[in-house]
């Protein structure tokens, strides 16, 4: 017998402005709040990257107004080397945490997971609301670092010890900047844990009648698998941040070794292990990159199936592969530490599962490609960005094979080869997944359609632009171009500066092309043509069987009953080329999962 706690926990329809739009318990509003936060963070992160790229191409260029952001970091509007590193750190941190973890998982997942499972809401709506506002506070704390006297931390988003732990003596931003960074990330962890709690319990306990786990759409599986990773990975990052803060404010020596001399002064700490930070961070850090990409895999699979009008070659294998990625992600983290000074035998221990993890990744890609082959894919903005996701994932993923070999990684570690790899496979691919999800679900969220012409223009410019920006990174890396350098003065780097200039111009143009998307998003929200019906894409999953936008309790008076697997498209003998999951139509020739 089921517990009515889900019903008893459901609030009535809110009436006040604050309850409806600010401190809302409705998962749909929370999802939109996360989306807005991710959008703002993406703009901030992108602008930071522009500042970095301009400095890399034209080192002595005075960027107008930069002194307003930091008078000490940019005297006369020319960036100091330290300020470059500070901008780089904040770019990475904001993008990885507040865009790539937030948008595909928290934004779309919060909006659509309860609907796709057939639930009225998440089971713990107060925790859900808290998760967003805690994440928001984390973002404010992170951005606040720009406004403290020394500026934000300059240690990279990875914050390696001992630089991150020694305090202000380590350079500008290494005092309060690091504390704010660690506090922000610690707060972010709490928000993610609360969110993951809701996602897991929704998937396991809140499914409607007839909705077995295998009948969940692939996007729901992506969010479910990601939430399990999020729960376990962020629970490790939080203690690491606590220990880092203590090294700063309490004089402990978790990470600072003995006899460290900086700027002529010997530090009072002793005995700390710098490698300990790397182990703690990367144990979180590698699952984190899968947290960034697995929701996109689910979303893209869902979108492609709807537009191909047929299911994937194997629904079950796709789910198992995403699960395998999640499990293996905990075993590979040492591949970020091949040259860290850890025992070289460990390198073999981490290299082997890193190569093994390419197997489920390849299976996923081959299932996509094999399913696309011979299909009549409907071309629209959503399906184009879904194809772009696959392209970026393959391009970025292939360079991972090389980095997985410790012998090659000795040469490639800390070069632009790595930067190109993760930007393509995680950054751009996940962004394309976010765009695909936006174009696809915009009609359901708002009741209006986005402009298709603008969407296609956005796709073409972004696709070409992203390759122009990130493909040359691999060449730069192989040529020996070290990452996290603010200027290239060595004689083997000077010939590469024209490549950097090309990349900078491409980056700025590609970034400007995103204005097309922002305009399309905002304009269509208010003035876009109304969606022709509740199911403009003729989809089968539960979100397409409810009103547009969905009512407060998602399904109105009658909760859905599910009769079919999620992707009954083009079934012989059926009344239409798609069968809603809630349709009681009996299929004589089903493509049911067994």
């Amino acid at each position, binding site marked *: 017998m089921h*517990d009515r706690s889900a019903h008893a926990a459901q609030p009535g329809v809110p009436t006040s402005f604050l309850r409806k739009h600010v401190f809302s318990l409705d998962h749909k509003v929370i999802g939109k709040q996360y989306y807005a936060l991710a959008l703002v963070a993406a703009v901030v992160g992108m602008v930071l990257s522009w500042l970095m790229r301009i400095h890399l191409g034209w080192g002595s260029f005075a960027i107008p107004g930069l002194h307003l952001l930091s008078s000490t970091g940019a005297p006369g509007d020319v960036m100091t080397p330290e300020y470059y590193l500070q901008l780089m750190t904040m770019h990475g941190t904001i993008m990885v945490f507040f865009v790539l973890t937030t948008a595909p998982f928290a934004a779309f997942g919060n909006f659509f997971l309860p609907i796709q499972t057939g639930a009225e809401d998440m*089971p713990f709506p107060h925790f859900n609301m808290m998760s967003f506002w805690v994440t928001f506070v984390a973002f404010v704390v992170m951005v606040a670092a720009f406004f403290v006297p020394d500026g934000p931390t300059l240690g990279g988003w990875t914050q390696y010890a001992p630089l991150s732990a020694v305090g202000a003596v380590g350079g500008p931003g290494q005092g309060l900047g690091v504390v704010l960074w660690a506090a922000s990330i610690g707060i972010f962890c709490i928000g993610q844990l609360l969110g993951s709690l809701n996602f897991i319990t929704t998937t396991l306990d809140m499914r409607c009648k007839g909705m077995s786990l295998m009948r969940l759409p692939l996007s729901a599986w992506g969010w479910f698998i990601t939430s399990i990773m999020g729960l376990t990975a962020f629970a490790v990052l939080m203690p690491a941040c606590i220990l880092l803060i203590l090294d700063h404010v*309490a004089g402990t020596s978790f990470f600072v*070794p003995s006899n460290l001399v900086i700027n002529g002064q010997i530090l009072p700490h002793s005995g*700390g292990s710098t490698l300990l930070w790397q182990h703690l961070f990367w144990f979180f850090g590698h699952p984190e990159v899968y947290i960034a990409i697995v929701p996109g895999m689910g979303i893209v699979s869902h979108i492609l199936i709807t537009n191909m009008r047929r299911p994937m070659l194997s629904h079950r294998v796709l789910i198992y592969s995403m699960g395998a990625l999640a499990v293996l992600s905990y075993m590979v983290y040492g591949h970020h530490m091949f040259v860290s000074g850890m025992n070289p035998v460990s390198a073999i221990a981490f290299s082997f599962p890193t190569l093994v993890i390419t197997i489920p990744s390849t299976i996923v890609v081959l299932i996509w490609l094999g399913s696309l082959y011979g299909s009549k894919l409907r071309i629209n903005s959503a399906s184009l960005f879904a194809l772009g996701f696959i392209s970026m994932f393959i391009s970025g993923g292939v360079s991972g094979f090389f980095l997985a070999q410790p012998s090659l990684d000795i040469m490639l570690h800390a070069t632009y080869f790595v930067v190109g790899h993760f930007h393509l496979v995680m950054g751009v691919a996940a962004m394309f997944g976010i765009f695909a999800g936006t174009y696809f679900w915009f009609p359901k969220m708002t009741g209006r359609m986005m402009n298709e012409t603008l969407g296609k223009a956005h796709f073409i410019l972004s696709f070409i632009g992203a390759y122009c920006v990130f493909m040359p990174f691999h060449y730069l890396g192989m040529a020996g171009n070290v990452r996290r350098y603010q200027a290239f003065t060595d004689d083997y780097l000077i010939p590469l500066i024209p490549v950097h200039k090309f990349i900078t111009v491409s980056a700025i143009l590609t970034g400007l092309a995103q204005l097309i998307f922002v305009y399309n998003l905002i304009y269509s929200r208010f003035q876009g043509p109304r969606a022709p019906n509740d199911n403009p894409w003729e989809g089968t999953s539960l979100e397409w069987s409810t009103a547009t936008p969905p009512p407060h309790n998602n399904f109105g008076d009658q909760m859905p009953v599910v009769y079919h697997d999620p992707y009954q498209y083009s079934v012989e003998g059926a009344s239409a080329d798609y069968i809603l999951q809630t349709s009681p139509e009996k299929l004589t020739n089903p493509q049911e999962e067994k």
Partner: protein
Amino acid sequence: MATTVPEPPKIDLEPLPSDGSGKGGWGNLVPAGGELRRVKPSSPPPASTGIWVGLAAITMTFAAFTSALIVRQGASPDWQHFPLPPILYLDSLVIIASSLTLEIARRQIARFMVAEKTRAAAPARWLSITLCLGLLFVAGQTFAWLQLRSAGFGLASNISYSFFYVLTVAHATHLLGGLGGLVRVLGKLNHSVLRRSTLEATSLYWHFMGALWLYLLLLLWMKL
């Protein structure tokens, strides 16, 4: 509030099924042409799953602290061994006792459910005793911290003390959450409806805090 008229506290028994969410896919799957597959009629209440999810996260957090301790101890010879403040052993008895009193409270409530007992005061009293024991535990921890600090062994005095404070403070922080849960259960028992899933989730969390303390005591005793 059930104080003047002896009546069992209102406990939300397994309610009748409705068409709401939470049917959990455990209902009979409608056949697509095959035969009906019979499975469990409903899903567990969300609080029951949610508490295990929460405990998994807390376990990972303390696993991270444990691995940090082990790695850090092996990294440098500056580890200073010290005897644990004796009050911690007394505290351990206190937290074990609190788990026992919580179990007594749960059994009292179960007897109300089947109307074996009619006095409402007993389960509330045992829950209050549990709460008091929890507060006593936190007081004991605080005494241990103050005792060490007054002897000159603060957070940064040595890495072994750093880990001692970090682990015990982290545990006490989570225990305060458990105390909040107990207060909530008491409030619902006395003033409104207490769901079985709420009571069981809170109890599980409390017992986990006890088990976690015993694990930490063993770890600290072995390593410090």
